[in-house]
């Protein structure tokens, strides 16, 4: 690699004037992009801006209507992922394309098995090469271990190894940090820098501003299918990028005044909860949420948060301890009773629990309230009342939809979440449980939902916020409980808690040990 790799170097890969139209929308409108070897190129844009379409064109999953792709100056045709891999273009998808029951080696070989002869796969050679490749990154990888047993962070490494194993020159990572903890993110950034130094070209797709600023050499911002700007990290900042991305000025942090907590609304006392397999994953957890405050629970996903939420919202039963709402025992209350008592719940898996995707928006907006006036008289639904209420909610919560009668699956993720928020935030709500309320959403929707949450807090609603997104917890919470291995290990003041402090508790549970110091070192 030459030192003047930055501009004079010819582009390894060039996309010129790529246009891709879908019925009714232009997903990519004459997008041009130059990707160089030894460079991390970030593609920044909101959900639905056209990032994924562009990368699908590059990976041969979508045929462009116009434009061309050049590799090392030569025009090439990419008609399928197979073509792309052949040309050295590899993609690490947001949702890993790994088969959990197969071993690391099998996953890496899948689709390109080295043959001993016409029938049998030559595994021993492959296995050794994978071990070797891993070692070159300082990873100790057991090629025979089933992928399902690996942590998410390691699965991602397997995906990256897979790309490298196939002699990729261009590596496309689609939102690679969405599923990682802050520590894992830092580690994967190390890997990316290393790949960059070895001359790989990396395309890093994200909508997280600070990450892009940290890792990228060039940032290309896409909005509504067009390139709206290109920046170098040194010459820009989060506000500038956010404005480019959204097309207007965005408030990245919510203006939240002092909280005025009143009496205890939710009291959780010593509850223990089992998971679906009957193992106890929440142990003796106690906390309370006051009216008019946001209590955030931070923690790496899978530390018992889902089961805790289940117990609080009536979807699961705590086998020990009590839960009280406004003084009433609701340990054994079902979702309907809780709803009647004023509990709103924005579920973490919005498509599984929050919506019936095939139903129209209007029906989804009355999912909890379909059975009583004004939406029903006796057993008869009042379609007009349902529709009128839906139209009002859609206007109030700015859900972008052609009408209230289209199926909710036609909406974007952000608008689907707004639909759920519109349903759960309305009415006589006393407690709101927000589970990963902004997971996978774009900046505009996140801003909207955060504002709504703070507004509800200020009207005296108690809010329990559970998020794997540490920044979200830090930004919104008046108090923060850190969950680690099924326990709340610490409760901190939301304003004074630092990112490092909470991150450390999330990773170690706060036990002082050598590991802890080590992580503090890497964190600072």
């Amino acid at each position, binding site marked *: 690699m030459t030192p003047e790799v930055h501009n004079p170097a010819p582009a390894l890969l060039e996309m010129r004037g790529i246009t891709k139209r879908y019925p009714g929308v232009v997903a990519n409108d004459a997008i041009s992009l130059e990707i160089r070897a030894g460079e991390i190129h970030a593609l920044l844009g909101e959900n639905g801006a056209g990032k994924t379409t562009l990368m699908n064109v590059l990976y041969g999953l979508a045929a462009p209507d116009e434009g061309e792709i050049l590799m090392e100056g030569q025009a090439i045709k990419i008609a399928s992922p197979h073509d792309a891999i052949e040309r050295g273009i590899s993609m690490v998808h947001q949702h890993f394309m790994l088969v959990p029951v197969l071993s690391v080696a099998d996953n890496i070989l899948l689709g390109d098995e080295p043959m001993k002869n016409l029938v049998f796969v030559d595994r021993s050679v492959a296995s050794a090469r994978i071990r070797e490749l891993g070692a070159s990154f300082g990873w100790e990888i057991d090629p025979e271990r089933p992928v399902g047993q690996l942590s998410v962070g390691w699965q991602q490494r397997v995906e990256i190894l897979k790309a490298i194993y196939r002699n990729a020159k261009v590596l496309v990572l689609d939102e690679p940090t969405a599923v990682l903890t802050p520590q894992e993110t830092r580690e994967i950034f190390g890997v990316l820098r290393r790949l960059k130094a070895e001359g790989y070209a990396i395309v890093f797709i994200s909508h997280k501003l600070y990450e892009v600023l940290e890792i990228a050499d060039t940032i290309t911002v896409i909005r509504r299918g067009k390139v709206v700007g290109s920046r170098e990290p040194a010459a820009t900042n989060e506000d500038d990028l956010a404005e480019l991305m959204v097309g207007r000025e965005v408030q990245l942090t919510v203006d939240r005044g002092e909280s005025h907590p009143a009496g205890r609304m939710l009291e959780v006392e010593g509850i223990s909860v089992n998971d679906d397999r009957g193992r106890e994953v929440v142990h003796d957890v106690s906390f309370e949420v006051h009216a008019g405050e946001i209590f955030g629970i931070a923690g790496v996903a899978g530390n018992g948060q889902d089961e805790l939420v289940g117990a609080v*919202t009536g*979807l699961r039963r705590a086998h020990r301890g009590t839960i009280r709402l406004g003084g009433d025992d609701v340990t054994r209350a*079902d*979702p*309907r*009773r809780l*709803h009647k008592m004023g509990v709103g*719940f924005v*579920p973490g898996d919005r498509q*599984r*629990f*929050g*919506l*019936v*995707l*095939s*139903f129209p928006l209007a*029906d989804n907006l009355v*999912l*909890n309230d*379909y*059975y009583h006036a004004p939406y*029903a008289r006796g*057993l*008869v*639904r009042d*379609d*007009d009342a349902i*529709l009128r209420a839906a139209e009002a909610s859609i206007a109030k919560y700015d859900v972008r939809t052609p009408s209230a*009668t289209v*199926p909710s*699956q*036609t909406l974007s993720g952000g608008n689907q979440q707004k639909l759920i928020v519109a349903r759960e935030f309305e009415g006589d709500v006393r407690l709101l449980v927000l589970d990963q309320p902004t997971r996978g959403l774009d900046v505009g929707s996140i801003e909207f939902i955060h504002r709504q949450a703070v507004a509800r807090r200020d009207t005296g609603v108690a809010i329990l916020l559970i998020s794997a997104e540490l920044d979200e917890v830090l930004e919104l919470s008046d108090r923060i409980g850190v969950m680690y291995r099924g326990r709340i290990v610490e409760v901190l003041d939301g304003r004074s808690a630092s990112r490092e402090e909470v991150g450390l508790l999330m990773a170690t549970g706060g036990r002082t040990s050598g590991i802890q110091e080590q992580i503090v070192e890497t964190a600072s």
Partner: protein
Amino acid sequence: MTAGARVVAALQRGRAVALVPALSIALALVIGAVIMILSSPLVSGEFDPTLPVTAYLAMLSGAFGSFDGVVRTLVNATPLVLAGLAVGIGFKAGLFNIGAQGQFLIGALTAAAAALALNDASPFVAIPVALLAGMLGGLLWGFVPGALKAYTGAHEVVVTIMMNYVALAVLSWAVSGPLRGQNVTFARTDDLVGASLPIFLGRDGHIGLLIAAVSVPLASWLLYRSTIGFEIRTTGANPDAARYAGMHPRKLIVFTMSLCGLLAGLAGASQLLGEVGYMTASFSTTVGFDAIAVALLGRAHPVGILFGALLFGAMQAGSGNMQILAGLPVQMVGVLQATILLVLTAEVVVRRLFRVQASGPELVELASVSRSYGGKGTG
């Protein structure tokens, strides 16, 4: 939305939904024609490319060409409408009720038992009681798989298939044992004179026809206008969301399966009391199985089921005429029905062949068919 706009919207939706079934029927008729031409040497000794035209015209005139033919079509469609609803409403709840056949048989049997007991009573008593008995028998045969599914997780497909055999065995036992008639030469009951359904239309248009006609709007109302229907559809489309919304998917599964059983039982009772007049061990027609095809053809929608049942009813009504005029055996109708079902389930092929885009959202109800084979359950 005004009433007018609502009608227009419903028609547009109907067109989008009905397109694939309509194309499937057309394709099945073409395949049927090919089979007829290929088999024509067996009929007339040489290849006869006009045979399908003759056959289809004969079928058409048999089903609709005369007043009696039309009535025959309607009478044939009657049990298919009721049993079709028994399968279709199940689909809406995410359940694959293969047990309509068993529920149909048990409904007929309990109706027969009640009718025999009231053979000397006034028809005003005997008919309602016998129909009610049929509904209760069917309900019981639906309740059992529903309860097993809801509270033990036993798959309704497996349980209903097994209960079809149990129903058949119970039927044989009853007509050769406790319900066997006095002066009969084979295993059958006495004639059920007291509760036989009155004829009000043509030669054999019995009042079961009216029951089926009323059940379609009732089922529509239940599914789309009532809160229970909303719960049923929510449970079928997304059981997790139903639980989250405070509904009770387990109770709904039991309720829906019981309702399905009731409808299939009513179909059996109506068929027995309106058509046959006495119970035999060979009463087992294929109504309960044809109902699955009807429900799929009707896309699990009551109105669609009505059309599907009328089509099948007409094909059966016209089969005799087809045999006489075209020399094809009546079994050809079975071939056609099976082909329709085959083509319907291979929807992807139909779409590709006719270049039809998937019309918006998938029909989640029909997912319960594929889900029955090891996919995600509703438990």
